């Protein structure tokens, strides 16, 4: 049976179609979820896509967090449902307190889009088990508010528990503390990542195919997961 992976569309979501395409290319069935509908439609995992939900006004992700779908999703994530937040999705996960810390304005104050090398460090999560520990991958980064911040105790804890999923290599594009590009929750089912794996799944349109690993990981995870 093919896994069903939900992709949530908020008003202002932009990479939702791309996330659904990546899910499809990875071999799963994308299921579109609507911000105003709390029903998760029985999906096996959920992607919160990139974009500017609610225009990113006030703070990125601040308003999206109160969408009806988020109420269900927060509970489901606490219960172990794999959730991947990409860019704006990462911001929403932090605002919803599923992940610690916050994403703030890039230090150089500009939106920046470039192809970025990352080092995958935590490969035990639901979304990164297809990678080798220490593997370097190339995927696009594009954000205006991607600078990850948290207090020192939180950062130390993330490091100690092996919850830094990926770091920027060869230049930090936004000033993120400790070059953090992606983190996970203690259970490893919720991952937030600033760069965009869904834009690196086809040779024709991306800088590599490295992004596909995130989507194949969750399929592998689901096969191994108890029903």
């Amino acid at each position: 049976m093919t896994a069903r992976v939900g992709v949530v569309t908020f008003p202002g979501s932009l990479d939702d179609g791309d996330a659904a395409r990546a899910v499809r290319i990875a071999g799963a069935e994308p299921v579109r979820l609507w911000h105003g509908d709390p029903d998760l439609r029985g999906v096996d995992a959920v992607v919160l896509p990139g974009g500017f939900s609610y225009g990113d006004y006030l703070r990125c992700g601040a308003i999206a967090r109160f969408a009806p779908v988020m109420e269900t999703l927060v509970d489901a994530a606490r219960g172990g449902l794999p959730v991947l937040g990409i860019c704006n999705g990462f911001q929403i996960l932090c605002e919803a307190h599923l992940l610690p810390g916050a994403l703030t304005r890039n230090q150089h104050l500009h939106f920046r889009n470039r192809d970025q090398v990352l080092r995958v460090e935590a490969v035990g999560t639901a979304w990164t088990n297809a990678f080798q520990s220490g593997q370097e991958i190339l995927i696009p980064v594009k954000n205006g508010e991607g600078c990850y911040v948290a207090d020192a105790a939180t950062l130390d804890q993330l490091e100690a528990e092996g919850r830094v999923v990926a770091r920027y290599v060869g230049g930090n594009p936004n000033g993120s503390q400790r070059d953090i590009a992606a983190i996970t929750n203690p259970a490893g089912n919720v991952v937030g990542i600033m760069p965009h794996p869904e834009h690196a799944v086809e040779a024709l349109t991306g800088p590599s195919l490295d992004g596909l690993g995130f989507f194949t990981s969750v399929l592998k995870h689901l096969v191994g997961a108890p029903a």
Partner: protein
Amino acid sequence: MPRVVVDVMLKPEILDPQGQAVANALPRLGVSDVASVRIGRRIEIDFTGEPDLDRAREIADKLLANPVIEDFTVRLVETDETAGAHP
């Protein structure tokens, strides 16, 4: 030491999409008695010596506010009244 606070707000006739987005979100938090929300910038300036209001006004005019679409006010505030001091 008092600090200078510059408040920069969009002119009233200028569209404030941020404020509008927040106002539209409030009913979902169960808030229905808000008529309007406007969002601007609050800028806190600490001088090395005595705070200098005229100087601050000049900075605001040249750098902090965009006079085409924004208005600003400049005032002195005791430091313990400022937002940063209230955890």
